[in-house]
């Protein structure tokens, strides 16, 4: 549908510009608020032009929120989620697409169904598992009566326990276990022509060799896309880290950021330090923006260089 009338052009462009404005306005307000002193931020009418306190506020936020340490923690978690996700989804999709076995479709649907159950929905059971990663196995052993049997026979009571609270594993693993990546890879693998698989077979490449030499190089744009999405997703995690981590040394940056905004009740009526909170927000936003901007070049390159 291509219409060329000046009025329609004007209307559509207006909508686009309005949308852009609505998107950028909050960002702009963050920058404005981060560059004023507290008095100027809370002044009425509000200041709409940037002030000169930006650097001072950034330094204050960095120090107050221990953002340096939080950056390291969050970076480790984000990289862990990103890598784990890419490896896991690539391998599962490989198994689902390129091997013929009876459980192929059931397994795919089981994985697919987890798309409907994001972490927020299953947060309580996930917490229970994180508190003891062997809980599902223990339950299984209890239900099948094996625990009872072993206890009756040898007097030993089976108690499996592995606590993941306050650890990187506890932060990373539940975030890795979602179907998005598997689905993305499956759709890509399905576009690989059968002849290519057969040519590799004729050339003597086994399954793992094929995965390494063909699929991974061919899916590098996929990897870039998934890496970007997962990095930003993990970086911005709030609810799960808040729950699973009580030890401050594992706190994620989004959790820390929320602490920069003091509640009225906690400050005893004091005005919250919005300028510091906004400066902190600016710092926290930076890494995802850098990743997206850097990876975008790869997207575009991958899209132009369609050598298939």
């Amino acid at each position: 549908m291509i219409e060329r009338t000046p009025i329609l052009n004007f209307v559509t462009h207006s909508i686009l510009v309005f949308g852009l404005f609505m998107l950028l306005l909050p960002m702009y307000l963050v920058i404005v608020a981060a560059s004023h002193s507290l008095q100027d931020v809370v002044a009425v009418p509000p200041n709409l032009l940037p002030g000169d306190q930006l650097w001072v506020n950034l330094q204050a936020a960095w120090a107050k929120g221990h953002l340096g340490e939080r950056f390291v923690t969050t970076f480790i978690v984000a990289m862990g989620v990103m890598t784990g996700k890419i490896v896991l989804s690539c391998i599962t999709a490989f198994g689902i697409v390129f091997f013929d076995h009876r459980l192929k479709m059931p397994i795919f649907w089981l994985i697919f169904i987890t798309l409907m159950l994001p972490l927020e929905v299953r947060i309580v059971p996930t917490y229970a598992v994180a508190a003891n990663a062997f809980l599902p196995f223990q339950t299984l052993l209890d239900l099948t009566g094996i625990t009872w049997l072993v206890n009756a026979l040898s007097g030993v009571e089976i108690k499996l326990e592995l606590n993941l609270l306050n650890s990187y594993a506890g932060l990373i693993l539940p975030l890795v276990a979602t179907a998005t990546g598997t689905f993305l890879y499956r759709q890509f693998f399905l576009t690989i022509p059968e002849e290519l698989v057969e040519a590799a077979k004729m050339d003597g490449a086994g399954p793992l060799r094929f995965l390494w030499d063909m699929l991974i190089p061919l899916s590098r744009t996929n990897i870039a896309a998934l890496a970007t999405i997962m990095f930003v997703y993990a970086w911005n995690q709030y609810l799960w880290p808040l729950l699973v981590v009580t030890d401050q040394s594992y706190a994620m940056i989004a959790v820390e950021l929320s602490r920069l905004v003091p509640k009225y009740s906690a400050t005893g009526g004091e005005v919250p330090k919005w300028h510091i909170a906004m400066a902190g927000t600016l710092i926290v936003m930076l890494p995802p923006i850098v990743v997206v901007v850097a990876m975008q070049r790869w997207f575009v390159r991958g899209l132009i260089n369609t050598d298939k």
Partner: protein
Amino acid sequence: MAHITIQDVRKSYAMTEVVRGISLEVQSGEFVVILGPSGCGKSTLLRMIAGLESISSGEIAIAGKVVNDLEPHERGCAMVFQNYALYPHMTVAENIGYALKVAGLPRVERTAKVADVAASVGLTEFLDRRPGQLSGGQRQRVAMARAIIRSPKVFLFDEPLSNLDAKLRVQMRHEIRRIHNQFKATSVFVTHDQHEGMTLADRLVVMNKGTIEQVGSPAEIYDHPASVYVAGFIGSPAMNFLPAHVSVPRRGVVLESGQLVPLASPPNLSDGHLVHLGIRPEHTTLVRAGAGTIDAQIDMIEELGASRLCNLLFEDIPICVLTEERPDLATGTTVGVDLHPQRLHLFDAATGRRIPNDPATVPASIARPISA
């Protein structure tokens, strides 16, 4: 180099049998073309030789060794695919050398070998390109080079030319034949294009509905098609068929119109036996009405440049005549058609098999006893 022995090989998917008991011997160094329409099982047969398709029953042996349970790369076959199946992310050199890399050949030797093979198919200047930057013919050459470099015992071609335009196809056909003459590797080539089949083959295998209709040299198959199916499939334009019955006393066959077509050596059949009389368009001549074997009406004339294809109607049966003359004839004009008596083919109407009407020139392999 190796010979291939195929013994009563069958392939079925669930309910349907695609390949129904094929036995074939391919001699060492021979170029065999398997020809048939799409869905006749020719590709499946080739893929079973390659090991890409399991064999439901029967046995395939390469160089005397049964390969039924061997992995594709252990069979010593190289395959050229219809869509080339080049690895899109690798350069031409990497594509050609991939099999050697998998086999663990050191880089230095590999590079030298790749350069050698690339030179032999004229790809030297393209070694650093990606398949996406090559033309169709060049991609085809890469696919060939990728097969050659493994020095396979057997070359398998799965309709490798069908994605090329007509001119390039002829060129690549020559190239394939040249490469075969150079390496003398046993080759099996699958195609639905009879020109490719006729020009490339040492021996042609015509398949239909999962079985072999006829095996023979291209000339043999053209001269003595074993069945109505082969006769209609090989040769372009296709052979004309006229229903008729044998007349022993008149030493010939009688067409449905009651007209007699005398035969030089009448077949050993009972009087009234129903047959199809076959004659190729290039073995007929347009003559004055009444002067030929039969009379027919002009329906349409197609200009081919070097010759003309006259579509006639004889008692509502379409007949094709290929002539180099340029007769100026209007639709509906009655003309005579001379059927060259030495070039007549007889087929049993019931079985569709060839009836040897000239035993002297019919090779023993296709001269079957007639059960009338």
